[in-house]
């Protein structure tokens, strides 16, 4: 990943030196040319071609926006309901994410989507304790988080 971006920047610089014009304009053209050449050579890299990961980041962002709007509408319905028949509760979510930044990103995404709130993380970063506003089915809530956010984050961090 880092090596591929570095190679791409190097190719852009090479293009600038070949053209003998040192402007941002030439750099961008060289970068795009490098992208095309590297896409052709993608079988020879150890890891995935890095555009996959860029797309995964964009996908995660769009998913987050979608969930944010959906969940806010849910909370709006709860607030406007005349009778408040909700069952707040805390459940544990076992996560498969390893590194610090993945766990942080997942916790912040869960917290930013209303109705759920990360309260604590176990010492080995394996279990998130989540407070939810209306708990009808724990397994359903776990599945929905696992299938949306965790999957998308794994798609980003996969080598």
């Amino acid at each position, binding site marked *: 990943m880092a090596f591929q971006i570095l190679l791409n920047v190097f190719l852009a610089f090479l293009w600038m030196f070949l053209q003998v014009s040192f402007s941002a304009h030439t750099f961008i053209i060289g970068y795009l040319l490098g992208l095309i050449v590297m896409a052709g050579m993608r079988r020879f890299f150890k890891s995935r071609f890095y555009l996959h990961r860029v797309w995964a980041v964009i996908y995660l962002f769009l998913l987050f926006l979608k969930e944010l709007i959906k969940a806010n509408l849910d909370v709006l319905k709860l607030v406007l309901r005349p009778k408040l028949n909700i069952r707040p509760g805390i459940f544990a979510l076992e996560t498969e994410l390893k590194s*610090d930044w993945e*766990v*942080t990103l997942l*916790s*912040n995404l869960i917290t930013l989507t209303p109705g759920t709130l*990360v309260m*604590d*993380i176990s*010492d080995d*970063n394996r279990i998130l304790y989540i407070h939810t506003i209306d708990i009808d089915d724990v397994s359903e809530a776990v599945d929905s988080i696992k299938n949306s956010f965790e999957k998308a984050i794994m798609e980003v961090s996969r080598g």
Partner: protein
Amino acid sequence: MKTNDVIFQTVAKVVFFMIIFFAVHLFFAGHYYPGGGFVGGLLTSGALVLLLLAFDMKTVQRGFPVDFKWLIGIGLLFSIGTAAGSLLFNVPFFTHAYNYFQLPLFGKTSLHTAMLFDLGVYLVVIGVTMTIIQTIGESE
């Protein structure tokens, strides 16, 4: 009762860079826009305090092995040196000189000796703030 600070520490590591960049931007903006040495220094020590909150004193001192009491002295030297430098040219104390230069990357830039004075203020503010906070934090 030891809690797991993984979220706080990861976010602090990222936000630290943003605060430092904003502090440097404020420091350089001080001549024409709001900002300057004092605010820049306070923001820089604010970024360091954020690290102190997220991690502990020893980690931050390993990362930035600076004795902040020295910064106060160096900053005062910068300020007094800038003020006294005008005496060499037979003009009153604290007279500033400035001119326009063509720098390779920045283009036409005005360089002013008030900048050096501001750098002194910046260093003194960082030194004083961090010394106060560290001495309060270390005393049991």
